[in-house]
Protein backbone atom coordinates (compact mmCIF):
# COMPACT_ATOMS: atom_id res chain seq x y z
CA UNK A 1 0.00 0.00 0.00
CA UNK A 2 1.45 3.40 -0.95
CA UNK A 3 1.35 6.61 1.06
CA UNK A 4 -1.58 8.04 -0.92
CA UNK A 5 -3.72 5.02 -0.17
CA UNK A 6 -2.72 5.11 3.47
CA UNK A 7 -3.77 8.76 3.77
CA UNK A 8 -7.01 8.00 1.94
CA UNK A 9 -7.70 5.03 4.19
CA UNK A 10 -7.02 7.23 7.22
CA UNK A 11 -9.48 9.84 5.99
CA UNK A 12 -12.09 7.21 5.25
CA UNK A 13 -11.66 5.66 8.69
CA UNK A 14 -12.04 9.13 10.21
CA UNK A 15 -15.22 9.84 8.28
CA UNK A 16 -16.57 6.37 9.01
CA UNK A 17 -15.69 6.84 12.67
CA UNK A 18 -17.58 10.14 12.84
CA UNK A 19 -20.58 8.70 11.08
CA UNK A 20 -20.71 5.74 13.43
CA UNK A 21 -20.81 8.10 16.40
CA UNK A 22 -24.01 9.53 15.07
CA UNK A 23 -25.61 6.32 13.99
CA UNK A 24 -24.49 2.89 15.13
CA UNK A 25 -24.49 0.34 12.38
CA UNK A 26 -24.16 -2.99 14.08
CA UNK A 27 -25.85 -5.15 11.52
CA UNK A 28 -29.05 -5.55 13.49
CA UNK A 29 -29.81 -1.90 12.76
CA UNK A 30 -29.05 -2.36 9.08
CA UNK A 31 -28.39 1.36 8.50
CA UNK A 32 -25.78 3.26 6.53
CA UNK A 33 -22.18 2.27 7.29
CA UNK A 34 -20.88 5.73 6.51
CA UNK A 35 -19.96 4.79 2.95
CA UNK A 36 -21.45 6.40 -0.09
CA UNK A 37 -23.52 4.10 -2.24
CA UNK A 38 -23.26 4.55 -5.95
CA UNK A 39 -25.54 1.73 -6.99
CA UNK A 40 -29.10 1.22 -5.87
CA UNK A 41 -30.03 2.44 -2.41
CA UNK A 42 -29.72 1.07 1.08
CA UNK A 43 -32.01 -1.85 1.73
CA UNK A 44 -34.45 -1.67 4.63
CA UNK A 45 -34.10 -4.30 7.35
CA UNK A 46 -37.11 -6.41 8.42
CA UNK A 47 -38.00 -4.02 11.27
CA UNK A 48 -38.42 -1.16 8.84
CA UNK A 49 -40.82 -3.32 6.82
CA UNK A 50 -43.03 -3.99 9.82
CA UNK A 51 -41.58 -7.36 10.88
CA UNK A 52 -40.65 -7.93 14.51
CA UNK A 53 -37.78 -10.31 15.23
CA UNK A 54 -37.21 -13.52 13.27
CA UNK A 55 -39.81 -14.27 10.65
CA UNK A 56 -40.89 -17.15 8.50
CA UNK A 57 -41.46 -16.03 4.91
CA UNK A 58 -43.88 -18.93 4.31
CA UNK A 59 -46.03 -17.80 7.23
CA UNK A 60 -45.46 -14.05 7.41
CA UNK A 61 -45.41 -13.08 3.75
CA UNK A 62 -48.30 -13.28 1.30
CA UNK A 63 -46.99 -14.58 -2.03
CA UNK A 64 -50.46 -15.22 -3.49
CA UNK A 65 -51.72 -11.69 -4.17
CA UNK A 66 -48.91 -10.85 -6.61
CA UNK A 67 -48.19 -14.43 -7.75
CA UNK A 68 -49.05 -13.73 -11.39
CA UNK A 69 -46.48 -10.91 -11.45
CA UNK A 70 -43.52 -13.24 -10.80
CA UNK A 71 -40.63 -11.93 -12.91
CA UNK A 72 -38.46 -14.35 -14.92
CA UNK A 73 -34.85 -13.92 -16.03
CA UNK A 74 -32.44 -15.12 -18.67
CA UNK A 75 -29.74 -17.59 -17.67
CA UNK A 76 -27.09 -16.03 -15.41
CA UNK A 77 -28.68 -12.59 -15.87
CA UNK A 78 -30.33 -10.23 -13.40
CA UNK A 79 -31.62 -7.53 -15.74
CA UNK A 80 -35.38 -7.12 -16.11
CA UNK A 81 -36.35 -8.13 -19.64
CA UNK A 82 -38.77 -5.95 -21.64
CA UNK A 83 -41.31 -8.80 -21.54
CA UNK A 84 -41.28 -8.74 -17.73
CA UNK A 85 -41.68 -4.98 -17.26
CA UNK A 86 -45.51 -4.94 -17.35
CA UNK A 87 -45.50 -7.27 -14.33
CA UNK A 88 -43.34 -4.88 -12.31
CA UNK A 89 -45.52 -1.97 -13.45
CA UNK A 90 -48.53 -3.91 -12.12
CA UNK A 91 -46.73 -4.42 -8.77
CA UNK A 92 -46.01 -0.67 -8.66
CA UNK A 93 -49.68 0.10 -9.32
CA UNK A 94 -50.67 -2.25 -6.49
CA UNK A 95 -48.23 -0.57 -4.10
CA UNK A 96 -49.53 2.88 -5.04
CA UNK A 97 -53.11 1.76 -4.45
CA UNK A 98 -52.09 0.25 -1.07
CA UNK A 99 -49.78 2.89 0.41
CA UNK A 100 -49.31 1.00 3.71
CA UNK A 101 -48.21 -2.20 2.00
CA UNK A 102 -44.56 -3.29 2.27
CA UNK A 103 -43.09 -6.28 0.52
CA UNK A 104 -40.13 -8.57 -0.01
CA UNK A 105 -38.74 -9.26 -3.44
CA UNK A 106 -37.41 -12.82 -3.24
CA UNK A 107 -34.82 -13.82 -5.84
CA UNK A 108 -34.22 -17.40 -7.05
CA UNK A 109 -31.88 -19.20 -9.45
CA UNK A 110 -31.83 -22.43 -11.41
CA UNK A 111 -29.43 -25.15 -10.29
CA UNK A 112 -26.80 -24.58 -12.95
CA UNK A 113 -24.68 -22.15 -10.95
CA UNK A 114 -22.50 -22.91 -7.95
CA UNK A 115 -24.32 -22.46 -4.64
CA UNK A 116 -22.74 -19.37 -3.10
CA UNK A 117 -22.63 -17.51 -6.41
CA UNK A 118 -26.33 -18.30 -6.86
CA UNK A 119 -27.11 -16.76 -3.48
CA UNK A 120 -25.74 -13.44 -4.67
CA UNK A 121 -27.19 -13.79 -8.18
CA UNK A 122 -30.66 -14.30 -6.65
CA UNK A 123 -30.11 -11.21 -4.53
CA UNK A 124 -29.00 -9.22 -7.57
CA UNK A 125 -32.22 -10.26 -9.34
CA UNK A 126 -34.29 -9.10 -6.37
CA UNK A 127 -32.26 -5.86 -6.25
CA UNK A 128 -32.86 -5.10 -9.93
CA UNK A 129 -36.61 -5.66 -9.52
CA UNK A 130 -36.53 -3.34 -6.51
CA UNK A 131 -34.63 -0.71 -8.51
CA UNK A 132 -37.29 -0.92 -11.21
CA UNK A 133 -40.08 -0.42 -8.66
CA UNK A 134 -38.23 2.58 -7.24
CA UNK A 135 -38.00 3.94 -10.78
CA UNK A 136 -41.81 3.69 -10.85
CA UNK A 137 -41.94 6.02 -7.85
CA UNK A 138 -42.16 3.48 -5.01
CA UNK A 139 -40.16 4.40 -1.90
CA UNK A 140 -37.26 1.96 -1.42
CA UNK A 141 -38.06 1.80 2.30
CA UNK A 142 -41.13 -0.25 1.44
CA UNK A 143 -39.19 -2.91 -0.48
CA UNK A 144 -36.95 -5.50 1.15
CA UNK A 145 -35.01 -8.18 -0.72
CA UNK A 146 -33.74 -11.65 0.03
CA UNK A 147 -32.27 -14.48 -2.00
CA UNK A 148 -32.69 -18.23 -1.78
CA UNK A 149 -30.14 -18.92 -4.50
CA UNK A 150 -31.10 -22.34 -5.88
CA UNK A 151 -32.52 -23.66 -2.57
CA UNK A 152 -36.21 -23.34 -3.47
CA UNK A 153 -36.93 -24.21 -7.09
CA UNK A 154 -40.51 -23.51 -8.24
CA UNK A 155 -40.46 -26.77 -10.20
CA UNK A 156 -38.22 -29.83 -9.86
CA UNK A 157 -36.29 -31.40 -12.68
CA UNK A 158 -33.63 -30.66 -15.25
CA UNK A 159 -34.02 -29.09 -18.65
CA UNK A 160 -34.56 -25.55 -19.86
CA UNK A 161 -38.32 -25.64 -19.14
CA UNK A 162 -37.70 -26.21 -15.45
CA UNK A 163 -34.69 -23.91 -15.32
CA UNK A 164 -36.62 -21.02 -16.91
CA UNK A 165 -39.42 -21.35 -14.32
CA UNK A 166 -36.88 -21.30 -11.47
CA UNK A 167 -34.97 -18.15 -12.48
CA UNK A 168 -37.36 -15.70 -10.88
CA UNK A 169 -38.24 -12.97 -8.42
CA UNK A 170 -41.41 -13.42 -6.37
CA UNK A 171 -43.25 -10.75 -4.42
CA UNK A 172 -44.20 -11.43 -0.80
CA UNK A 173 -46.40 -8.79 0.85
CA UNK A 174 -45.70 -8.41 4.56
CA UNK A 175 -48.80 -9.60 6.46
CA UNK A 176 -49.76 -6.97 9.02
Amino acid at each position, binding site marked *: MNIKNLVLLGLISLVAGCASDMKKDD*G*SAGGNAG*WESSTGSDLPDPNALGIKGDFDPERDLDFDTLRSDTVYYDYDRATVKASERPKLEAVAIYLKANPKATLYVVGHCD*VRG*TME*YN*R*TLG*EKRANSARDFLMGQGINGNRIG*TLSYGSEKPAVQGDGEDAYAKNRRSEFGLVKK
Partner: protein
Amino acid sequence: MKHASLLCSLLLTFGIFCSSRLVAQSEIVVDVRRTPISVEISGSNGAEATKVLEQDLKIHGFNLVSEGSGKFVIKGTADGTSVQATVTESGGKSVLSDTFTGANLRQAAHKLNDAVVKVATGVNGIAATRIAFISERSGKKEVYMSDYDGHNVRQITTDASINVGPRFSKDGQFLAYTTYKSGYPTVMLNRLSSQDRKRVAAFGGTNTGPAISPDNEKIALSISKYGNPELAVIPLLGGEAQRLTNTRGAESSPSWSPDGRRIVYVSDDRGSVQLFVIGAGGGTPEKLVTPSNYSTEPDWSPTGKDISYTIRQGGKFQVSVYNVASGKSRLVTNVGENTDAVWAPNGRHLIFTRGNAGRGNLIVLDVASGETLQVTPNLGICSEPTWAP
Protein backbone atom coordinates in the same frame (compact mmCIF):
# COMPACT_ATOMS: atom_id res chain seq x y z
CA MET B 1 -23.12 -65.02 -13.65
CA LYS B 2 -24.35 -64.62 -17.20
CA HIS B 3 -26.20 -61.49 -16.17
CA ALA B 4 -23.18 -60.21 -14.37
CA SER B 5 -20.93 -60.58 -17.40
CA LEU B 6 -23.56 -58.97 -19.61
CA LEU B 7 -23.73 -56.03 -17.23
CA CYS B 8 -19.97 -55.96 -17.21
CA SER B 9 -19.69 -55.71 -20.96
CA LEU B 10 -22.41 -53.05 -21.00
CA LEU B 11 -20.47 -51.05 -18.48
CA LEU B 12 -17.30 -51.57 -20.48
CA THR B 13 -19.10 -50.21 -23.51
CA PHE B 14 -19.60 -47.02 -21.60
CA GLY B 15 -15.97 -46.99 -20.57
CA ILE B 16 -16.50 -48.04 -16.98
CA PHE B 17 -14.49 -50.94 -15.64
CA CYS B 18 -16.29 -53.34 -13.35
CA SER B 19 -13.22 -53.54 -11.19
CA SER B 20 -13.12 -49.79 -10.67
CA ARG B 21 -14.33 -50.25 -7.13
CA LEU B 22 -11.38 -52.47 -6.41
CA VAL B 23 -8.64 -50.29 -7.84
CA ALA B 24 -7.81 -46.85 -6.58
CA GLN B 25 -10.20 -44.40 -8.18
CA SER B 26 -7.93 -41.79 -9.58
CA GLU B 27 -8.54 -38.21 -10.57
CA ILE B 28 -6.25 -36.43 -13.01
CA VAL B 29 -3.34 -38.87 -12.91
CA VAL B 30 -0.30 -37.40 -11.28
CA ASP B 31 3.04 -38.96 -12.15
CA VAL B 32 4.37 -39.52 -8.71
CA ARG B 33 6.45 -42.31 -7.26
CA ARG B 34 4.49 -43.61 -4.29
CA THR B 35 6.60 -44.55 -1.30
CA PRO B 36 6.09 -48.24 -0.42
CA ILE B 37 5.05 -48.79 3.19
CA SER B 38 3.78 -51.77 5.19
CA VAL B 39 1.59 -52.12 8.26
CA GLU B 40 1.59 -54.95 10.79
CA ILE B 41 -0.41 -54.22 13.92
CA SER B 42 -1.40 -56.94 16.37
CA GLY B 43 -3.27 -56.75 19.66
CA SER B 44 -6.97 -56.92 20.49
CA ASN B 45 -7.80 -54.03 18.12
CA GLY B 46 -5.03 -54.74 15.61
CA ALA B 47 -7.31 -55.45 12.67
CA GLU B 48 -9.32 -52.26 13.04
CA ALA B 49 -6.24 -50.11 13.65
CA THR B 50 -4.63 -51.59 10.51
CA LYS B 51 -7.71 -50.84 8.42
CA VAL B 52 -7.85 -47.21 9.57
CA LEU B 53 -4.10 -46.68 9.19
CA GLU B 54 -4.02 -48.19 5.70
CA GLN B 55 -6.85 -45.92 4.56
CA ASP B 56 -4.99 -42.92 6.01
CA LEU B 57 -1.63 -43.85 4.45
CA LYS B 58 -3.23 -44.36 1.04
CA ILE B 59 -4.82 -40.90 0.94
CA HIS B 60 -1.38 -39.50 1.86
CA GLY B 61 0.08 -41.00 -1.31
CA PHE B 62 1.74 -44.14 0.08
CA ASN B 63 1.80 -47.48 -1.67
CA LEU B 64 0.79 -50.26 0.72
CA VAL B 65 2.94 -53.39 0.36
CA SER B 66 3.11 -56.73 2.15
CA GLU B 67 3.98 -56.93 5.83
CA GLY B 68 7.60 -56.35 6.70
CA SER B 69 8.55 -54.84 3.31
CA GLY B 70 8.63 -51.33 1.89
CA LYS B 71 10.72 -48.23 2.45
CA PHE B 72 8.99 -47.83 5.81
CA VAL B 73 7.89 -50.72 7.97
CA ILE B 74 5.27 -50.06 10.65
CA LYS B 75 4.91 -52.61 13.45
CA GLY B 76 2.85 -52.27 16.57
CA THR B 77 0.03 -53.34 18.85
CA ALA B 78 -3.42 -51.82 19.34
CA ASP B 79 -5.42 -52.25 22.52
CA GLY B 80 -8.34 -50.19 23.83
CA THR B 81 -7.97 -46.70 22.39
CA SER B 82 -4.18 -46.80 22.07
CA VAL B 83 -1.74 -47.84 19.37
CA GLN B 84 1.89 -48.47 20.22
CA ALA B 85 4.10 -48.49 17.12
CA THR B 86 7.63 -48.43 15.81
CA VAL B 87 8.57 -47.37 12.30
CA THR B 88 11.81 -48.52 10.70
CA GLU B 89 13.28 -47.34 7.45
CA SER B 90 14.59 -49.96 5.01
CA GLY B 91 18.05 -50.74 6.33
CA GLY B 92 16.75 -51.08 9.83
CA LYS B 93 17.01 -47.54 11.14
CA SER B 94 14.21 -46.73 13.61
CA VAL B 95 12.59 -43.38 12.76
CA LEU B 96 9.62 -43.42 15.12
CA SER B 97 8.63 -45.22 18.31
CA ASP B 98 5.69 -43.97 20.30
CA THR B 99 2.28 -44.71 21.81
CA PHE B 100 -0.73 -42.88 20.36
CA THR B 101 -3.93 -42.51 22.35
CA GLY B 102 -7.24 -40.97 21.25
CA ALA B 103 -10.82 -40.57 22.41
CA ASN B 104 -11.37 -43.73 20.36
CA LEU B 105 -9.22 -46.23 18.48
CA ARG B 106 -9.72 -44.50 15.11
CA GLN B 107 -8.31 -41.28 16.47
CA ALA B 108 -5.29 -43.10 17.90
CA ALA B 109 -4.62 -44.66 14.49
CA HIS B 110 -5.09 -41.25 12.81
CA LYS B 111 -2.47 -39.75 15.14
CA LEU B 112 -0.05 -42.55 14.31
CA ASN B 113 -0.61 -41.91 10.60
CA ASP B 114 0.10 -38.20 10.92
CA ALA B 115 3.32 -38.94 12.84
CA VAL B 116 4.42 -41.39 10.13
CA VAL B 117 3.55 -38.93 7.34
CA LYS B 118 5.57 -36.23 9.11
CA VAL B 119 8.76 -38.32 9.48
CA ALA B 120 8.46 -39.89 6.03
CA THR B 121 7.55 -36.83 3.95
CA GLY B 122 7.97 -33.75 6.14
CA VAL B 123 4.36 -32.79 5.35
CA ASN B 124 1.67 -32.54 8.02
CA GLY B 125 -0.86 -35.36 7.83
CA ILE B 126 -4.60 -34.69 7.83
CA ALA B 127 -5.92 -37.89 9.40
CA ALA B 128 -6.44 -36.28 12.82
CA THR B 129 -8.21 -33.22 11.38
CA ARG B 130 -11.93 -32.43 11.40
CA ILE B 131 -14.38 -31.22 8.79
CA ALA B 132 -17.76 -29.52 8.88
CA PHE B 133 -20.34 -29.67 6.12
CA ILE B 134 -24.04 -29.46 5.31
CA SER B 135 -26.27 -32.54 5.33
CA GLU B 136 -29.87 -32.79 4.19
CA ARG B 137 -30.59 -35.94 6.20
CA SER B 138 -33.37 -34.28 8.24
CA GLY B 139 -34.99 -32.82 5.14
CA LYS B 140 -33.56 -29.44 6.11
CA LYS B 141 -30.01 -28.20 5.67
CA GLU B 142 -28.06 -28.47 8.94
CA VAL B 143 -24.37 -28.12 9.84
CA TYR B 144 -22.51 -31.25 10.97
CA MET B 145 -18.94 -31.95 12.04
CA SER B 146 -16.91 -35.14 11.81
CA ASP B 147 -13.41 -36.58 11.53
CA TYR B 148 -11.84 -35.98 8.11
CA ASP B 149 -13.11 -39.37 6.89
CA GLY B 150 -16.72 -38.86 8.03
CA HIS B 151 -16.55 -40.85 11.26
CA ASN B 152 -17.54 -39.52 14.70
CA VAL B 153 -20.30 -37.25 13.41
CA ARG B 154 -21.71 -34.47 15.57
CA GLN B 155 -24.70 -32.33 14.59
CA ILE B 156 -23.93 -28.64 15.12
CA THR B 157 -27.24 -26.96 14.23
CA THR B 158 -30.86 -28.00 14.77
CA ASP B 159 -32.61 -24.99 13.27
CA ALA B 160 -34.98 -26.80 10.89
CA SER B 161 -34.18 -24.03 8.45
CA ILE B 162 -31.63 -23.62 5.66
CA ASN B 163 -28.05 -23.42 6.94
CA VAL B 164 -25.36 -23.13 4.29
CA GLY B 165 -21.75 -22.18 3.53
CA PRO B 166 -19.97 -23.19 6.78
CA ARG B 167 -16.37 -21.97 7.14
CA PHE B 168 -13.99 -22.75 10.00
CA SER B 169 -11.55 -20.21 11.35
CA LYS B 170 -7.93 -21.16 10.62
CA ASP B 171 -7.48 -22.48 14.17
CA GLY B 172 -10.78 -24.39 14.16
CA GLN B 173 -12.05 -22.41 17.14
CA PHE B 174 -14.92 -20.73 15.29
CA LEU B 175 -17.38 -21.78 12.62
CA ALA B 176 -19.25 -19.15 10.58
CA TYR B 177 -22.16 -19.92 8.26
CA THR B 178 -25.24 -18.45 6.62
CA THR B 179 -28.61 -19.21 8.16
CA TYR B 180 -32.16 -18.52 6.98
CA LYS B 181 -33.41 -18.98 10.54
CA SER B 182 -34.03 -15.23 10.82
CA GLY B 183 -36.32 -15.36 7.78
CA TYR B 184 -33.62 -13.99 5.48
CA PRO B 185 -29.92 -14.87 5.06
CA THR B 186 -27.91 -13.73 8.06
CA VAL B 187 -24.48 -14.81 9.29
CA MET B 188 -24.02 -16.85 12.45
CA LEU B 189 -20.76 -17.46 14.34
CA ASN B 190 -20.40 -20.58 16.50
CA ARG B 191 -17.80 -20.75 19.26
CA LEU B 192 -17.00 -24.45 19.29
CA SER B 193 -15.25 -24.58 22.67
CA SER B 194 -18.26 -23.25 24.55
CA GLN B 195 -20.87 -24.47 22.06
CA ASP B 196 -22.63 -21.13 21.79
CA ARG B 197 -23.27 -18.80 18.89
CA LYS B 198 -24.00 -15.24 17.90
CA ARG B 199 -25.66 -13.61 14.93
CA VAL B 200 -22.91 -11.37 13.56
CA ALA B 201 -24.33 -9.95 10.32
CA ALA B 202 -28.02 -9.17 9.80
CA PHE B 203 -28.00 -6.14 7.55
CA GLY B 204 -31.00 -5.54 5.31
CA GLY B 205 -30.91 -7.79 2.24
CA THR B 206 -28.71 -10.87 1.93
CA ASN B 207 -25.76 -11.57 4.27
CA THR B 208 -23.74 -14.56 3.10
CA GLY B 209 -20.40 -16.25 2.40
CA PRO B 210 -18.60 -15.52 5.70
CA ALA B 211 -14.82 -16.12 5.83
CA ILE B 212 -12.97 -15.56 9.11
CA SER B 213 -9.61 -13.76 8.84
CA PRO B 214 -6.52 -15.83 9.82
CA ASP B 215 -6.06 -13.75 13.01
CA ASN B 216 -9.69 -14.28 14.08
CA GLU B 217 -10.25 -10.51 14.10
CA LYS B 218 -12.61 -10.06 11.15
CA ILE B 219 -15.13 -11.70 8.86
CA ALA B 220 -15.19 -11.01 5.13
CA LEU B 221 -18.60 -11.59 3.56
CA SER B 222 -21.04 -10.53 0.89
CA ILE B 223 -23.75 -8.08 1.96
CA SER B 224 -26.36 -6.38 -0.20
CA LYS B 225 -27.54 -3.62 2.11
CA TYR B 226 -25.97 -1.12 -0.29
CA GLY B 227 -28.49 -2.05 -2.97
CA ASN B 228 -26.61 -4.97 -4.50
CA PRO B 229 -24.18 -7.63 -3.21
CA GLU B 230 -20.78 -6.15 -2.30
CA LEU B 231 -17.72 -7.51 -0.54
CA ALA B 232 -17.35 -6.18 3.01
CA VAL B 233 -15.47 -6.83 6.24
CA ILE B 234 -16.98 -6.77 9.72
CA PRO B 235 -15.43 -7.36 13.18
CA LEU B 236 -15.48 -11.06 14.18
CA LEU B 237 -18.33 -10.59 16.64
CA GLY B 238 -20.30 -8.24 14.40
CA GLY B 239 -20.42 -4.47 14.08
CA GLU B 240 -19.86 -1.83 11.49
CA ALA B 241 -19.28 -3.02 7.95
CA GLN B 242 -16.31 -1.80 5.96
CA ARG B 243 -17.18 -1.96 2.30
CA LEU B 244 -14.39 -3.20 0.00
CA THR B 245 -16.02 -3.12 -3.44
CA ASN B 246 -18.34 -0.78 -5.27
CA THR B 247 -19.69 -2.26 -8.49
CA ARG B 248 -22.94 -2.95 -10.29
CA GLY B 249 -22.15 -6.66 -10.20
CA ALA B 250 -22.49 -9.21 -7.42
CA GLU B 251 -19.43 -9.95 -5.28
CA SER B 252 -19.29 -13.22 -3.33
CA SER B 253 -17.25 -16.08 -1.83
CA PRO B 254 -14.34 -14.28 -0.13
CA SER B 255 -11.29 -16.26 1.01
CA TRP B 256 -8.33 -14.74 2.89
CA SER B 257 -4.68 -15.11 1.94
CA PRO B 258 -2.86 -16.89 4.81
CA ASP B 259 -1.12 -13.65 5.84
CA GLY B 260 -4.52 -11.93 6.05
CA ARG B 261 -3.45 -9.12 3.71
CA ARG B 262 -5.48 -10.04 0.64
CA ILE B 263 -8.86 -11.53 -0.21
CA VAL B 264 -9.76 -13.55 -3.29
CA TYR B 265 -13.44 -13.41 -4.30
CA VAL B 266 -15.92 -13.78 -7.15
CA SER B 267 -17.43 -10.94 -9.17
CA ASP B 268 -19.68 -10.90 -12.23
CA ASP B 269 -19.23 -7.17 -12.69
CA ARG B 270 -17.41 -7.47 -16.02
CA GLY B 271 -19.99 -9.65 -17.75
CA SER B 272 -18.57 -13.07 -16.98
CA VAL B 273 -18.05 -14.68 -13.57
CA GLN B 274 -14.42 -14.23 -12.55
CA LEU B 275 -11.99 -14.34 -9.63
CA PHE B 276 -10.46 -11.15 -8.26
CA VAL B 277 -7.96 -10.32 -5.52
CA ILE B 278 -8.32 -7.18 -3.40
CA GLY B 279 -6.40 -5.81 -0.41
CA ALA B 280 -8.00 -6.68 2.93
CA GLY B 281 -8.51 -2.93 3.45
CA GLY B 282 -9.85 -2.35 -0.06
CA GLY B 283 -8.11 -0.86 -3.09
CA THR B 284 -8.06 -1.73 -6.77
CA PRO B 285 -9.03 -5.35 -7.46
CA GLU B 286 -6.79 -7.49 -9.64
CA LYS B 287 -8.44 -10.00 -11.96
CA LEU B 288 -7.06 -13.54 -11.98
CA VAL B 289 -6.87 -14.94 -15.49
CA THR B 290 -8.50 -18.39 -15.59
CA PRO B 291 -9.38 -20.55 -18.60
CA SER B 292 -13.16 -20.25 -18.06
CA ASN B 293 -15.75 -17.47 -18.14
CA TYR B 294 -17.34 -19.06 -15.07
CA SER B 295 -14.87 -19.32 -12.18
CA THR B 296 -16.26 -19.41 -8.66
CA GLU B 297 -15.70 -20.70 -5.08
CA PRO B 298 -12.04 -19.70 -4.60
CA ASP B 299 -10.16 -21.01 -1.57
CA TRP B 300 -6.68 -19.69 -0.80
CA SER B 301 -4.31 -22.48 0.23
CA PRO B 302 -2.73 -22.27 3.71
CA THR B 303 0.67 -22.25 1.96
CA GLY B 304 -0.37 -19.12 0.07
CA LYS B 305 0.91 -20.61 -3.17
CA ASP B 306 -2.34 -21.90 -4.69
CA ILE B 307 -6.00 -20.97 -4.98
CA SER B 308 -8.48 -23.76 -5.65
CA TYR B 309 -11.67 -22.82 -7.46
CA THR B 310 -14.57 -24.22 -9.45
CA ILE B 311 -14.45 -24.01 -13.20
CA ARG B 312 -17.23 -24.66 -15.69
CA GLN B 313 -16.18 -26.52 -18.80
CA GLY B 314 -18.67 -27.84 -21.32
CA GLY B 315 -21.53 -27.27 -18.89
CA LYS B 316 -19.85 -29.32 -16.13
CA PHE B 317 -18.19 -28.14 -12.95
CA GLN B 318 -14.68 -29.28 -12.02
CA VAL B 319 -12.09 -28.27 -9.45
CA SER B 320 -9.08 -26.34 -10.67
CA VAL B 321 -5.99 -25.05 -8.89
CA TYR B 322 -4.55 -21.62 -9.76
CA ASN B 323 -0.87 -21.20 -9.00
CA VAL B 324 -0.32 -17.67 -7.69
CA ALA B 325 3.32 -17.38 -8.87
CA SER B 326 2.84 -18.63 -12.42
CA GLY B 327 -0.78 -17.51 -12.95
CA LYS B 328 -1.47 -20.94 -14.46
CA SER B 329 -4.44 -23.18 -13.67
CA ARG B 330 -4.46 -26.96 -13.44
CA LEU B 331 -7.59 -29.14 -13.44
CA VAL B 332 -7.48 -31.61 -10.54
CA THR B 333 -10.80 -33.49 -10.95
CA ASN B 334 -12.42 -35.21 -13.90
CA VAL B 335 -14.68 -37.89 -12.40
CA GLY B 336 -18.33 -36.77 -12.32
CA GLU B 337 -19.07 -33.17 -11.39
CA ASN B 338 -17.23 -31.47 -8.53
CA THR B 339 -17.70 -28.20 -6.68
CA ASP B 340 -16.86 -26.20 -3.58
CA ALA B 341 -13.33 -27.39 -2.91
CA VAL B 342 -11.47 -26.20 0.19
CA TRP B 343 -7.91 -26.91 1.27
CA ALA B 344 -6.84 -29.05 4.17
CA PRO B 345 -4.71 -27.34 6.82
CA ASN B 346 -1.62 -28.91 5.19
CA GLY B 347 -2.24 -27.24 1.81
CA ARG B 348 -1.83 -30.59 0.01
CA HIS B 349 -5.31 -32.13 0.23
CA LEU B 350 -8.64 -30.77 -0.95
CA ILE B 351 -12.16 -31.73 0.04
CA PHE B 352 -15.08 -31.06 -2.32
CA THR B 353 -18.61 -32.10 -3.20
CA ARG B 354 -19.12 -34.67 -5.95
CA GLY B 355 -22.60 -34.67 -7.49
CA ASN B 356 -25.02 -32.63 -9.55
CA ALA B 357 -25.84 -29.06 -8.58
CA GLY B 358 -23.24 -28.98 -5.81
CA ARG B 359 -24.91 -31.74 -3.74
CA GLY B 360 -23.84 -35.34 -3.22
CA ASN B 361 -20.81 -37.00 -1.65
CA LEU B 362 -17.79 -35.42 -0.02
CA ILE B 363 -14.46 -36.44 -1.54
CA VAL B 364 -10.95 -35.93 -0.14
CA LEU B 365 -8.28 -35.56 -2.82
CA ASP B 366 -4.52 -35.78 -2.34
CA VAL B 367 -3.55 -33.23 -4.99
CA ALA B 368 0.05 -34.49 -5.03
CA SER B 369 -0.84 -38.10 -5.92
CA GLY B 370 -4.36 -37.88 -7.37
CA GLU B 371 -5.59 -40.37 -4.74
CA THR B 372 -9.18 -39.88 -3.53
CA LEU B 373 -11.18 -40.99 -0.51
CA GLN B 374 -14.97 -40.81 -0.25
CA VAL B 375 -16.00 -39.37 3.09
CA THR B 376 -18.68 -41.58 4.62
CA PRO B 377 -20.68 -39.85 7.34
CA ASN B 378 -23.78 -41.84 6.24
CA LEU B 379 -25.82 -38.66 6.28
CA GLY B 380 -27.36 -38.76 2.82
CA ILE B 381 -26.87 -35.76 0.55
CA CYS B 382 -23.99 -33.58 1.72
CA SER B 383 -22.46 -30.32 0.47
CA GLU B 384 -20.18 -27.35 1.19
CA PRO B 385 -17.37 -28.88 3.28
CA THR B 386 -14.87 -26.86 5.35
CA TRP B 387 -11.69 -28.04 7.06
CA ALA B 388 -10.23 -27.43 10.52
CA PRO B 389 -6.88 -28.50 12.08
